[in-house]
């Protein structure tokens, strides 16, 4: 064979990045050419990712780049996430032409789409944390352009928050990497598990890992770092919201999985942190989604909640015992969530393109007449809600079972706590069902208020969402042949083993039944009862009691900056004070002969102008003479020797 498999790894990263400027200039010339080129590059990357997933795991190190040397690796969960990422980018790029028709500055969007693709694949295929960091930063910055792309006021604010969070996360993470590198001597992911297990400084290791957790947690949307997510995802154009929600959050999840498996395997404290934050994220996201009356914001909050599910699974994985179901559940849920969000966000984009609003009340019945869109949305919604027979049911069952297993392993208060988490899990599942029903009924069942142009879905968007929607159903019907195979494929990289579960046993169906019952109750009693204005049939706009960003983070940041600036100014102006004092002392009762402030031409103390060539001011003239003197001296010295 001419080319080794491992060369595909950097190629996956570099090809989209190198193609970005080319696509930029192509897209400026012709929309068709540019869009075609984007899809082509994505397809090439998809083919490479597919090939990499089918080949045995491989690695490639390039020493000396970026001072530290970079390396890439494939296999297991990396290959799966890489494949998912390439698939989602390809599908999303198919929806681009229709969504961006008639919009300005699409070339910019396309170029940064490809840059982000390169960055995110670099995150998944990184062989060490250093490479991962570099690609992570690239991805963060490139995707920032997506959020700001629309240039509305909301988009600007969301983009500022996104950028600030990304910067803070990146730097905290970098600090953690510095410490890890110093403590363990390497950041190579292959060597880290052993070194970390043997590391004597547990506290230092834990703190470094927490720094990484902050960085990844911000990207994943983990509470309390989630504030950017419900603002940024709706602000971005729909095809990129799908990617932000579906796959960029997964890069954070992927990082957290690396912390668990490579640094703190079996660490109880990390497990507790993840469990607490995961549960809060899961419930909070679901509650926010139920209240939201904005289509894309509902979906974004739903993403929060789903990431919370995954984090709870991650907490179960961290315990290090009986991890097979948790590992499988995480992978399956990440996969499902990605596909679901691809379907839902692009469907939302189709609706937005026709109605130019995201307000649910104004969108009432918008998609009623468009059957393909309706079916795809329904499939996505059913899967997200965890209806048996769909992918979401399988992954939620796995996660649920993993909690149940941990309850059996735990004892005393820990078991009680976990039971509480189990209930939170089931309730969140119910809320998911409730808000998805709310969306579906409003958009696709109720009659539109006014007759307008019926929504039509274009071929590109349909091609983008139909495969994912179909996959969710087909894979959900045959979990043993699909999800279990995938879980087995990734099991080793997550330090767990393959498994087999009876998904449609009574025990497992019971969980889904409880969730769906709760969902039905919430929908009927709460959403239709309290949240609906019965005269108009509109959903009531609820205002949040507290906005974590506007009420806590921004004031806190402002205060810190003020205090810092005050201290800095004080320290800095000390010198000026001393100079002033000195000047006052010197001029005390002394005739002021030198007054540079009053003389317009400082230094012109002779009455006559001296003019030689271009020089007319005497001080400069004297400096010039000085220069001549120096040159003459040097030449003299030269000859004296």
């Amino acid at each position, binding site marked *: 064979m001419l080319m080794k498999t491992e060369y595909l790894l950097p190629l996956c990263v570099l090809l989209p990045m190198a193609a970005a400027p080319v696509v930029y200039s192509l897209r400026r010339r012709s929309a068709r050419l540019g869009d075609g080129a984007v899809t082509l590059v994505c397809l090439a990357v998809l083919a490479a990712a597919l090939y990499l997933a089918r080949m045995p795991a491989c690695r490639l190190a390039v020493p000396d780049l970026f001072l530290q040397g970079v390396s890439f690796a494939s296999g297991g969960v990396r290959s799966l996430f890489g494949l998912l990422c390439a698939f989602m980018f390809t599908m999303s790029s198919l929806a681009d032409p229709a969504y961006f028709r008639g919009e300005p500055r699409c070339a910019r969007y396309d170029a940064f789409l490809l840059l982000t693709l390169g960055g995110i694949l670099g995150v998944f295929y990184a062989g060490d944390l250093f490479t991962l960091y570099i690609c992570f930063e690239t991805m963060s910055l490139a995707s920032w352009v997506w959020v700001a792309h629309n*240039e509305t006021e909301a988009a600007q604010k969301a983009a500022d928050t996104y950028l600030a969070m990304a910067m803070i996360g990146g730097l905290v993470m970098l600090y953690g990497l510095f410490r890890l590198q110093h403590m363990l001597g390497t950041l190579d992911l292959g060597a880290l598990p052993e070194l970390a297990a043997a590391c004597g400084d547990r506290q230092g290791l834990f703190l470094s890992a927490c720094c990484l957790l902050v960085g990844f947690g911000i990207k994943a949307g983990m509470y309390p770092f989630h504030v950017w997510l419900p603002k940024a995802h709706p602000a971005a154009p729909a095809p990129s919201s799908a990617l932000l929600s579906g796959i960029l959050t997964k890069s954070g999840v992927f990082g957290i999985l690396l912390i668990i498996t490579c640094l703190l395997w079996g660490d109880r404290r990390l497990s507790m942190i993840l469990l607490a934050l995961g549960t809060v994220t899961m419930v909070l996201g679901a509650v926010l989604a139920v209240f939201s009356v904005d289509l894309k914001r509902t979906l974004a909050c739903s993403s929060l909640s789903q990431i919370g599910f995954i984090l709870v699974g991650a907490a179960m994985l961290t315990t290090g015992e009986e991890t097979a179901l948790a590992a499988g559940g995480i992978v399956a849920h990440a996969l499902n969530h990605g596909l679901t969000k691809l379907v839902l966000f692009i469907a939302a984009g189709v609706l937005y393109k026709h109605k130019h609003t995201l307000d649910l009340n104004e969108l009432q019945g918008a998609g009623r007449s468009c059957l393909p869109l309706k079916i795809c949305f329904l499939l996505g919604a059913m899967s997200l809600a965890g209806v048996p027979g769909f992918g979401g049911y399988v992954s939620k069952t796995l996660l649920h079972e993993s909690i149940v297993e941990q309850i059996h392993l735990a004892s005393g208060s820990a078991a009680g706590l976990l039971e509480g988490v189990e209930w939170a899990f089931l309730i969140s599942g119910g809320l998911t069902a409730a808000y998805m029903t709310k969306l579906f009924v409003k958009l696709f069942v109720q009659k539109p208020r006014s007759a307008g142009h019926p929504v039509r879905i274009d071929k590109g968007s349909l091609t983008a969402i139909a495969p994912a929607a179909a996959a969710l159903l087909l894979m959900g019907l045959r979990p043993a042949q699909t999800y279990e195979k995938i879980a087995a494929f990734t099991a080793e990289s997550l330090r767990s083993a393959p498994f087999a579960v009876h998904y449609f046993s009574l025990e497992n169906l019971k969980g889904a039944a409880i969730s769906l019952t709760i969902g039905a109750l919430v929908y009927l009693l709460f959403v239709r009862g309290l949240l609906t204005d019965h005269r108009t049939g509109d959903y009531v706009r609820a205002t949040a009691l507290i906005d974590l960003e506007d009420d806590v983070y921004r004031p806190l940041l402002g205060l810190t900056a003020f205090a810092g600036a005050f201290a800095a100014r004080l320290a*800095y102006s000390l010198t000026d004070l001393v100079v002033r004092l000195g000047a006052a002392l010197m001029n005390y009762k002394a005739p002021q002969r030198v007054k540079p402030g009053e003389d317009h031409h400082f230094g012109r103390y002779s009455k006559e102008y001296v003019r030689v060539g271009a020089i007319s001011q005497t001080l400069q003239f004297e400096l010039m003479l000085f220069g001549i003197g120096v040159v003459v001296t040097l030449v003299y010295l030269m000859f004296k020797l």
Partner: protein
Amino acid sequence: MMQLFILLLPVLLPACAGLYILLRRPGQCGRTACLAALLCCLTIFPAVRSGAGEGVRIEITYFLSLILRADRLGIFFMALIAAAFFLALVYACEYLGRDKRQPVFFGFTLMTLGAMMGLCLAGNLITFYMFFELMSLLSFPLVLYSGGEEASLAAMKYLGFSVFGASLVLMGMILGGGLPIHAFGRVGQMALDARQLWAFLLIALGFSCKAGMMPMANWLPTAHPVAPAPASALLSGIITKAGILGMMRAAFYVFGGRNLAGTFPQTVLLVLSIATIFAGSMLAYKEKQFKKRLAYSSVSQLSYVIFGMMLCTPAGVCGALLQVVFHACAKIGLFLCAGAFIHHCDVHNVDGLLGMGRRMPRVMAAFTCFALSLIGIPPFGGFAAKWQLAAAALEQGSAAAQTGLVVLMVSALLTAGYLLPIVARGYFPGEGFKAKVTDGGPAMVLPMVVLAGAAALLGIFPAGLASFFRTVASAMF
């Protein structure tokens, strides 16, 4: 004599060219100046050959002798300085346009270049001091250039701080006794007594005035904004580095890095540099005038170098030198961008930079690269420098170093805070923004492209540079 002639050529060539420009009738002289700077770059090569080894010694009295030689550190600084001057002069051709007084700018810039070449070639502290003073005085008209009261006061401040700093150096040299006369070289292990330690502290503080470390940083934010953009670029990016070079020479070639490790001057300088890193960034974050913001930023960034250097380890010196290179690239570039904004759009304040990405796309693209490099975001070089500095700080492990690392991260965040909003508002001015495109001409954009390319390429492939610096650093200890 031939050896001395070749060694002095990089000094004399720009100095004579500068004098020639000054004495000639007023008129266009940008091309002559650029040519002279380019030739100066070329004269480095023979000077390096002939200055290797012992170099040339000129004995004036028994105690006072001048030494000229070219060691690795000097060669590196010569290359950096000459290249930066060349780029700034090319830029100035367009920036100064048809300004009648431009011979003053070009002439004194070239003479400053000559003095700085001498500074790099200096083989002992006395020679260094001479050229240092020369440089301070010759760069003075650059601050004064734009005329007016503000410029006069700023120039006065610049001169005052320079003279005060130099006097501290002189005091230190007198206090240091026999040490400053020796030729620069590897210093053996010895115990420094209190007098010598104070001497070092005075010398270092004196040089740090030029390098913009608190408590003597106040001249930078006053002098940089009033100077014409290419001059402020050189002042901020290059002339401040003379102070860095002075500190390095004093610390590692006169007093010895190992001897200084663990002494009180080291702690004092570390603490001061850490305070400056934070204060500079914080003040830049709050500053609205663009060039002043950049000047504060220099105050902060240069103290990264001092911090790395004063860790007194080879790794720290290596990190400091990397920071020297990448700060020079980024800061010169940023000042050139600031000049382009002023020259073409008459924008002095940060708020006026709205939509700059549409008005001056090429300049703004370069600005983005420089900003990312200064913050330390890969793939740009600032990242490599920061990585090396952090590794050195952790390796050294003292409380000051640990604190410094945290402050370094906070400062990086603040750097992002004062540069990225400009990028954000420049590219995303909001719906309905309309403006004419008035981009910089080739003479303005070309130097920016070169600098941005250098920051990116050296950031991605820093191995050669880093190994060169490791050699330099290991020769010091």
